[in-house]
């Protein structure tokens, strides 16, 4: 059945972004309302689409060179994308509403909402894209909106730098992604997923080629989902407004990498070696980020590293060839991580942009709703039984247990760390006595902010139950119920939680300092060093070479030399008549020599 609904869902936010930029830039409240209305409309359309199986949408030709190269502008509307559609627009809608409160007094409110709408457009585009190029288009657009939103408070140097860092890192990932797309296109002759699938045999007959192509595509996901080694941008991206961190840097955009890998899973899964690499990258990211998170003091950075870590889990699932498990964790993670961020945002705004956890404390009394919902989120995150994270993380752990024991061990340890760092956060922030005036004077947030918290808390609790989640996606079922995996997971979780509570109860400052972790394994620093000694050095050399060698020496040298020759030549004209006569005679002799005797 043909329907224009996907078009509406996709274009409503774009229209809103355009309208705000062009017309209502000065009317801040109106801008925000337009944006919220657009995203609600989009959510409605998404729900309608979700309700109708077998829907299809009319297609445009974006670029059409006939058989040589054709990029349609079309949608894929299978179960996967319809679920993501609802998820993205739903969480998006919640965060739009939350933002009404969070950004109430912001000067750049119009710009913020325009960018938010544009982000919705881009993200929905990724979900709906039916071919690589279109996917890439929205992929980059998402990076662009992320840039704008991270840099929303552009006057702060940290925010401006973080925005750039995010975009650059994403670009590096996209470099690989585009190459991967090129390779796939060259070998199969198409960029449309549905056309590539039947021609997969061309690829599978060249295993090495296939592995390279798959890994290059994975590069894109590494950049977008902030996996090691391109994870460095995500913690910095926390300079943006907190709703952005919740929406973009926790629930949706960073998950796009996982979604993309699932979408092209049929290619990746054809290459076992690529899968192995992906799984290990996921494992390393999960471990690394969790370790770093244990030593951070900024509430949002802790959550950011937690995000990286959780995305690592999803990558493990992808690498173990289980799309279902990856999507399941993506689904639950979206709720509880958005919840955690919004909770953090609620604290931050009430504490007047204080983000250091050691300046908080005892907030459980001051912000009860925030506290309760935050705890729900935290429990979901650590995989506390009966909360959503428990189900999804368990699935992944079980998968790892089945297929790859070393990964399982690391993942289990990561689960322990997860519990440790989030409980550390909860304990330090919500209990004991307030450690700053702001914390003492804080108060609960308004309803427009707590409302979404409550909704998300419900979802974070229920999201993992089969009766709820089954409507949205295929829940993976293990063949036989392995009891050992949940037992081990719960043990790790309790150990971690207990350790955290024991260590951090009633502390006013960090009891253990691990420099290696505080300094992020020196990864950022080594990157800085690397860039300084490669790109910056080359840039300076090139600029110098161009300015002084090619331009000053060669170009100006030639012109100056010509001028100099001219200045010498004019000296022949010495002014003496007889010298002229002599030259005259010399010329004649030379001519006669040339003409007659040669």
């Amino acid at each position, binding site marked *: 059945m043909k329907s224009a609904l996907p078009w509406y869902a996709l274009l409503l936010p774009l229209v809103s972004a355009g309208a705000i930029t062009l017309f209502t830039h000065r009317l801040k409240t109106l801008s925000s309302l337009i944006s919220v209305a657009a995203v609600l409309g989009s959510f409605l359309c998404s729900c309608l689409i979700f309700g109708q199986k077998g829907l299809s949408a009319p297609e445009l030709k974006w670029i059409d060179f006939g058989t040589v190269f054709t990029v349609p502008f079309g949608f894929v509307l299978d179960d996967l994308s319809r679920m993501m559609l609802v998820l993205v627009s739903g969480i998006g809608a919640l965060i739009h509403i939350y933002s009404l409160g969070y950004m109430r007094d912001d000067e750049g409110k119009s710009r913020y909402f325009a960018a938010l709408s544009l982000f919705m457009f881009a993200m929905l585009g990724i979900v709906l894209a039916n071919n690589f190029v279109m996917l890439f288009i929205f992929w980059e657009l998402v990076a662009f909106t992320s840039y704008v939103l991270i840099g929303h408070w552009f006057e702060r140097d940290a925010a401006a730098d973080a925005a750039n860092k995010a975009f650059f890192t994403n670009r590096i990932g996209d470099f690989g992604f585009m190459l991967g797309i090129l390779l796939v296109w060259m070998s199969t002759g198409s960029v449309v997923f549905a056309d590539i699938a039947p021609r997969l045999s061309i690829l599978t007959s060249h295993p090495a080629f296939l592995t390279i192509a798959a890994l290059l595509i994975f590069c894109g996901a590494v950049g977008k989902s902030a996996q090691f080694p391109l994870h460095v941008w995500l913690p910095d991206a926390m300079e943006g407004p907190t709703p952005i961190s919740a929406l973009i840097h926790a629930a949706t955009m960073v998950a796009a990498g996982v979604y993309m890998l699932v979408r092209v899973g049929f290619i990746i899964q054809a290459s076992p070696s690529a899968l192995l690499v992906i799984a290990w990258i996921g494992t390393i990211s999960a471990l690394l980020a969790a370790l770093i998170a244990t030593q951070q003091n900024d509430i949002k950075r802790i959550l950011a590293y937690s995000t990286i870590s959780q995305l690592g889990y999803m990558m493990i699932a992808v690498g173990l060839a289980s799309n279902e498990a990856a999507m399941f964790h993506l689904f639950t993670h979206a709720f509880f991580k958005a919840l955690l961020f919004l909770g953090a945002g609620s604290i931050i705004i009430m504490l007047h942009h204080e983000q250091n956890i050691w300046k908080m404390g005892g907030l459980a009394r001051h912000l009860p709703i925030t506290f309760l919902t935050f705890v729900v989120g935290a429990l979901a995150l650590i995989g506390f039984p009966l909360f959503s994270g428990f189900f999804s993380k368990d699935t992944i752990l079980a998968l790892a247990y089945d297929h790859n024991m070393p990964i399982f061990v690391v993942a289990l340890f990561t689960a322990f760390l997860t519990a440790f760092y989030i409980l550390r956060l909860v304990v330090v922030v919500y209990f004991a006595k307030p450690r700053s005036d702001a914390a003492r004077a804080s108060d609960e947030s308004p309803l427009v902010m707590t409302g979404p918290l409550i909704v998300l808390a419900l979802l974070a609790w229920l999201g993992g139950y089969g009766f709820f989640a089954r409507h949205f996606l295929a829940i993976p079922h293990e063949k036989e119920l392995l009891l050992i995996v949940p037992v081990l997971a719960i043990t790790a979780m309790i150990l971690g939680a207990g350790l955290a509570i024991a260590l951090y109860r009633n502390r006013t400052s960090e009891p253990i300092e691990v420099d290696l972790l505080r300094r992020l394994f020196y990864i950022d620093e080594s990157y800085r060093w690397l860039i300084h000694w490669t790109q910056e050095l080359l840039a300076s050399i090139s600029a110098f070479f161009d300015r002084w060698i090619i331009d000053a020496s060669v170009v100006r040298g030639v012109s100056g030399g010509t001028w100099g020759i001219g200045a010498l030549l004019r*000296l022949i*004209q*010495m*002014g*003496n008549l*007889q010298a002229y*006569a002599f030259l005259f005679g010399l010329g004649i002799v030379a001519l006669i020599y040339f003409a007659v005797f040669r």
Partner: protein
Amino acid sequence: MVTLGHYLIVSGILFAIGFAGVMLRRSLIIIFMSLELMLNAANLSLVAFSRFHVQPSGVPDYNAQVFVFFIITVGAAEVAVGLAIIVALFRARQTTHVEDINTLKF
């Protein structure tokens, strides 16, 4: 026997003397005379050619001799104008030495 070659050699020597005079002598007047000498060297060879180019009818080739007259006439005109200029130069600068006239250069 004086052949055409002898005439030509003499004319060549005259021409060379004239040219050397132009290059070496300081006074403009003498330079000018040297120039006339060069013209006359040409005249000499022209006449010689005329004498030795005997037409089938037995008469010399008078074309060349006509040319000689033209050269003499033109030379006279040149001298008239040239000397006037040199006189003007002397009046203005009180000199006819070539080294003294080199304000225009490079």
